[in-house]
């Protein structure tokens, strides 16, 4: 009798362990997995999810956002596009310099911020954390991503002291047309790799 009860308890404990672990994994909270989201929007490798901040998001999405985008705004206020690769599809790394260029967005205001691969501002000299519409104007623009010092701050994103990094495009008060037809109306900035440091001998 006791042996049977112990066996059942073991099954229950194992089930609880698997249940908890699978929930955390499917939410992207362990194991580096990002949940597959129904409302994902991808334009030229800039990836957003319209469900961020929405009450109707799936439980997996809500758990993921609670951990990685706490206090995020819903899409009517702001949309967030992340990019982790250059125009050739290679990962963004601090050993390379890039030129980011684009046009004004269909929105009230936009900015691009450089974060490390954990989502935090990277160590940067001169506080060159982001570029934005205020500094770059309402027309076509270009800026440089580099770990070098002494570049023009208003058109520089510093990648100093990080390894891999991501760029986050924030678009505040997006026009309804952009939300409805993002593939047509987003003006995705390009990220051209200029040069890379040679490997150490």
């Amino acid at each position, binding site marked *: 009798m006791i042996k049977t009860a112990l066996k059942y308890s073991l099954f229950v404990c194992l089930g609880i362990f*698997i249940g908890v672990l699978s929930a955390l994994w499917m939410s992207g909270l362990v194991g580096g997995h990002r949940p597959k989201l129904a409302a994902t929007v991808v334009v030229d490798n800039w990836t957003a999810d319209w469900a961020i901040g929405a009450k109707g998001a799936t439980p997996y999405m809500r758990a993921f956002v609670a951990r990685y985008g706490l206090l995020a705004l819903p899409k009517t206020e702001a949309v967030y596009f992340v990019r982790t690769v250059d125009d050739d599809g290679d990962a963004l790394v601090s050993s390379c310099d890039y030129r980011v260029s684009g046009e004004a967005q269909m929105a009230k205001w936009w900015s691009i911020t450089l974060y490390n691969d954990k989502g*935090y501002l990277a160590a940067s000299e001169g506080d060159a*954390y982001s570029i934005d519409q205020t500094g770059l104007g309402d027309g076509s623009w270009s800026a440089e991503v580099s770990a070098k010092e002494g570049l023009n701050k208003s058109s520089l994103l510093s990648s100093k002291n990080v390894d891999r990094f991501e760029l986050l495009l924030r678009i505040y008060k997006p026009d309804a047309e952009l939300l409805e037809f993002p593939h047509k109306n987003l003006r995705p900035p390009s990220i051209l790799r200029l040069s890379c440091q040679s490997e150490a001998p």
Partner: protein
Amino acid sequence: MKKLIAISLFVVAIITAHVLTLRSVPSVIMTKAIAAMGKRGIPEYKFVLSEPVTLETQTIVRSSPDLAYSICLFDLSNGPVFVSGAKWHGYGSLTIFDGVTDAVYIASLDAADTNISGSVVLTMDDKFISKEHPVAILNKPKGIALIRRLAPSTALFERVQTLSELDLCSPLSATHK
């Protein structure tokens, strides 16, 4: 029969643990965030303007260095709370996040959006009526009121510092006697 019972218990345990974990994650994370903000000196019922987001001051993932954040922690256990944000010439918003991370109320603080109120009464009483302000009903007592104002330069941040003194977050009984 014993094998069937064991398998059934195993499956039920997986499903139950999976669902309960998923449902509790936002609540647990929000509770931890509120506690962490409290430890950093953010009191209840008072907007506090955070320092500009930098490498040294960032506490939340993907904080924007272009925005000035004012945060108020509230607790509806003792009654409704009145929250109000001063208008700003540029992007600005007031967002109320409940205890499970949902944005239950958003108001523009952009002076260009003159028709939208920057004030709200927060309550857990679904029969509460206010003739003066919008009302947001929350299911849990604790939450965060967050004001964002676009301030990408030091000069603009200093203007926010002055303006933010007009922001209100306090028990309704204290502001509407």
